[in-house]
């Protein structure tokens, strides 16, 4: 009796996952799922959850298998052909150091967080969605490690990413962000990561920046970036599904979700601000400015999203207007602070060339020539005189986002934004009103923060072989060692850096396409185009 009947996509998915979970009767449900109640979210009917992608595992294996095959074919070819030398110049590679040292750790924590949701959510369908995202996030941490490992063999500063992620002062920015989410309840985590981080903001990393990677000849990175983002498209859909589900379950959920959207939009925006410098300063050839990207991906596409959610009573995030005010300054302010602190960061820094400054004048007509060009020109003069500007003290960090307090007041680009509050007789510093607001809602959480600069001053950042009583003990030198940074090798001025020297020796091309070659090697061979 042949059976020709074929189930369609929806039927097939629903049959294969149909009723897999059950109401327990030998144990109490609260004991099996202990995390579902303490956040105050009310779920009346988990069965209203709908997975829009309806991917069964066999289909998942098939499509992911194909994606992986394509990706590794490109990575293999790239490595065999020494593709690392085909990128625009050696400055481009510096951005990849941020990827391996910061982003892989984010993906890793995302894997952890979604694994917890895959276990703790109250029904099969949302648990399956979270489990699939968990294994995807594991994929991203893996493929990013594999794509970067080849670069690590030829360039400095990419050799000990996991060690640095746990210890390096500015890497506590991404680390604390994701640990904040992972230490939250399951509903807050999913709003934080699936919605605020992924749905609203990650397009900024994976679309314009990755397209920029392609433009600069890095087929390896663009392949893992786009391939990861195709999983992300499913994840973002989960993010939207989650929000609608929570809002539809009970009106009491609305203010809780709104509070989380406000908090996590700001938290995620501060982390992703790094992308602003990666786009404007670290891509030798640029696709679009941070300002343009923010306009498209947040203001237009995010605007569409929040217009859609208005029917539930959800408003755009509390500090959205600040991000719009900051968009003309963000990358310039951050590049300045990295440049000034270049001896204690894991990658070398440079001043923008004339060509690049002209591009920025065009892209940032209201701010660049007024505030930043004069600064960079002055610093260029100091560099040329052999007395480059440098910061000799460690910066004050924000208690919440852990960025140095480097940002300016939303309505005054000449005034540093500095906020302070007192809690239990202690003073806490913030980079912004947004971060202060987050602290004041949950002070008991944020007083726990492991703030690297504080820890250095407290003497907590030294290796076991160090004797702080010894006469030649230098706390800064020891702290840098503790953080896994190699002084004089990892950071400093780009033009004096090993990467620049090696690049010119190996490729006979200038390490910075806009400047004179840094070494005699290229000058002599004259292969500069």
């Amino acid at each position, binding site marked *: 009796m042949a059976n020709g009947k074929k189930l*369609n*996509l*929806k039927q097939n998915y629903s049959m294969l996952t149909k009723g897999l979970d059950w109401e327990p009767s030998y144990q109490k449900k609260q004991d099996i799922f202990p995390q579902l109640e303490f956040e105050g979210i009310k779920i009346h009917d988990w069965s209203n959850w709908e997975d*829009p*992608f*309806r*991917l069964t595992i066999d*289909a998942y294996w098939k*499509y992911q298998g*194909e*994606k992986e095959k*394509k990706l590794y074919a490109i990575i293999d070819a790239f490595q065999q052909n020494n593709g690392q030398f085909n990128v625009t110049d050696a400055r481009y590679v510096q951005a990849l150091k941020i990827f391996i040292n910061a982003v892989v750790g984010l993906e890793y924590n995302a894997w952890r967080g979604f694994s917890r949701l895959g276990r703790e959510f109250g029904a099969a369908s949302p648990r399956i969605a979270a489990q699939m995202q968990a294994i995807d996030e594991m994929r991203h941490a893996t493929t990013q490690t594999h794509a970067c490992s080849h670069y690590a063999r030829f360039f400095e500063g990419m050799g000990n990413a996991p060690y640095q992620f746990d210890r390096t002062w500015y890497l506590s920015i991404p680390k604390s962000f994701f640990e904040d989410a992972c230490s939250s309840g399951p509903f807050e985590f999913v709003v934080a990561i699936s919605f605020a981080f992924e749905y609203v903001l990650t*397009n900024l990393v*994976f*679309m*314009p920046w*990755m*397209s*920029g990677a*392609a*433009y600069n000849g890095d087929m390896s990175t*663009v392949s893992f970036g*786009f391939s990861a*983002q*195709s999983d*992300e*498209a*499913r994840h*973002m*859909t989960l993010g*939207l599904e989650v929000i609608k589900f929570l809002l539809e379950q009970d009106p009491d959920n609305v203010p809780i979700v709104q509070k989380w959207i406000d908090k996590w939009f700001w938290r995620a925006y501060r982390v992703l601000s790094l992308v602003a410098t990666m786009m404007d300063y670290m891509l030798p050839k640029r*696709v679009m400015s941070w300002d343009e990207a923010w306009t498209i991906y947040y203001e*237009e*596409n995010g*605007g*569409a*999203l929040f*217009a*859609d959610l208005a*029917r539930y009573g959800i408003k755009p995030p509390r500090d959205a207007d600040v991000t719009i005010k900051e968009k003309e300054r963000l990358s310039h302010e951050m590049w300045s602070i990295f440049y000034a602190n270049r001896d204690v960061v894991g990658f070398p820094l440079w001043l923008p060339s004339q060509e690049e400054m002209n591009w920025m004048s065009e892209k940032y007509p209201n701010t660049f020539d007024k505030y930043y060009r004069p600064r960079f020109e002055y610093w260029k003069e100091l560099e040329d005189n052999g007395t480059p500007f440098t910061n000799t003290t460690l910066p004050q960090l924000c208690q919440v986002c852990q960025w140095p307090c480097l940002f300016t007041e939303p309505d005054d680009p000449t005034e540093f934004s500095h906020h302070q509050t007192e809690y239990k007789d202690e003073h806490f510093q913030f980079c912004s009103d947004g971060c202060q607001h987050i602290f004041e809602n949950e002070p008991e959480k944020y007083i726990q923060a492991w703030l690297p600069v504080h820890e250095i001053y407290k003497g907590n950042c030294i290796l076991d072989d160090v004797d702080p009583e010894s006469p030649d003990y230098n706390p800064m030198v020891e702290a840098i060692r503790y953080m896994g940074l190699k002084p004089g090798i990892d950071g400093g001025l780009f033009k004096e850096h090993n990467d620049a020297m090696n690049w010119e020796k190996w490729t006979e091309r200038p390490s910075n396409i806009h400047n004179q070659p840094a070494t005699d090697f290229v000058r002599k061979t004259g292969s500069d185009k």
Partner: protein
Amino acid sequence: MNESKHPVFIAFQANNDTLPIVNAITRDNPLAIVNEMPAMVKIDCPGRLVIKRSSIEEEVGREFDLQELQINLISLSGEINEDDDEFTLSWN
């Protein structure tokens, strides 16, 4: 009943597999705007964008499963509705 004019978008890796998909989309969505960027093609459309299996099949000359879109997909924005014949993005 769908009246939103807010933009939805879908983006694919720019390659030989996605050419026919992009062609099918532009045929079925007269308001779609195709933005080409390095290695990527992003299609924006006000309010609603529909991808039809039958149109892609005409373009590629073979059977096409809409789940194959996954392979070259980069990103999207809008609420998804997917069945065997259509993949739709829209805002309310």
